[in-house]
């Protein structure tokens, strides 16, 4: 069960300026507090995030909805799936 009352669009994780594997670690910690169906936008600057967060989602069965990159800024949007 989610311990947050937030709407899906309000769920954002800011890991800008963190280097891998911290974005993945923080993503894992945050997802552990969310419920299936929640969507989380991960804001990052380390290009490794583009590989690692999708890989982490694949091994944990979550869905990557979109990845975008504008200059240094990377956003990976994921949907939490049931374990």
């Amino acid at each position, binding site marked *: 069960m989610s311990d947050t009352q937030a709407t899906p669009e309000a769920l954002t994780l800011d890991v800008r*300026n963190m*280097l*891998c*594997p*911290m974005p*993945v*670690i923080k993503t*894992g910690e945050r997802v552990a507090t969310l419920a299936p169906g929640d969507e989380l936008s991960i804001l990052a600057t*380390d*290009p*490794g995030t583009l*590989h*690692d967060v999708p*890989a*982490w989602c*694949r*091994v*944990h069965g979550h869905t990557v909805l979109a990845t975008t990159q504008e200059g240094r800024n990377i956003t990976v949007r994921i949907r939490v799936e049931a374990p």
Partner: protein
Amino acid sequence: MKHPKKAVALISGGLDSLLAAKVVMDQGVHVEGLNFFTGFCVEGHTHAIRTTRTASRQSSPRNNALWVAEQLGIKLHILDVIDDYKDVVLNPKHGYGKNLNPCVDCKVFMVNRAQTWGFMQDGGFDFVITGEVLGQRPKSQIREKLGIIAKDSGVQDRLLRPLSAKHLDPTLPEREGWVDREQLYDFHGRNRKPQIALAESLGFEDWAQPAGGCCFLADPEYSNRLGDMWRARNKREYGLDDIMLLKVGRHLRPSPNFKLLIGREEGENQYLEGYKQQFTHLRITSHKGPLSLLDGKATPDELQLAARIVARYSQGKMDATVDVSIHHPDGVSEALTVAPMPPQKIEKHWHV
């Protein structure tokens, strides 16, 4: 219905831990992987920092532990243990290896953490798997040390090393029949051929080949820098920023008072930009050149010396003078025009 037994596998991203997990999974055990981020890991950060160097060393900046988990089709949990790991690095009960690598204590820590983590999960986990191979590392993987790791971690005979199991006493999972000892292995020593043959027979074609060790503490240059930092501060301690910065740039200590950290390429300069508010930093203004941080306190004469050294690593190194601006953390800046130091004047022992 009988529930399958569950094992936590330490996954470093290298071949041995991949194989160890795989052979146990193939016996019907539910395996999940655990990977620890200590701050000293070779992976991850270095990819991000060293843009051009990385490109020549490794074709893709993948996280090898995650990649292994994908190959195996298992979950991988990456844990941040930076703070708790400090005691391992600063006070290793079993001492260091060749460099500042506290391998025995490190394994004790990780195996213990794996068990604790397993206990905390729904339904718990029954045992822990590592890819250790008897005799592969002269100091940490001899028989006596493998025994110490099992004992000091508190995991005892719930610690299974599938690649060398036949050389070791039967563990609980083997005695209870959770895994069939006959289907485990008798690898021993430094020869990697048996692992490579096993990998091929299991259909793996690609794996990471960590050279020397799984972390920077096993690297002589890095250990030397860490030791130098402790000596300069007169205190054995570190924070994440400290140990990250030891991975980046050229480090020169021309005086006991300060050390210069000079970016070697664009990726490193970019990375150092993130720290410039915390340090006195030097920029070359007349030519292209690196960003440099000054760690410590320099006298005016020493600032002059620092500027000359930094100028030597700029594109103006052959010119008569180079302009350098020095920015202090309190916001005060000064500009110097200096003669770049000739290479032969840069003392060898300054390099750390």
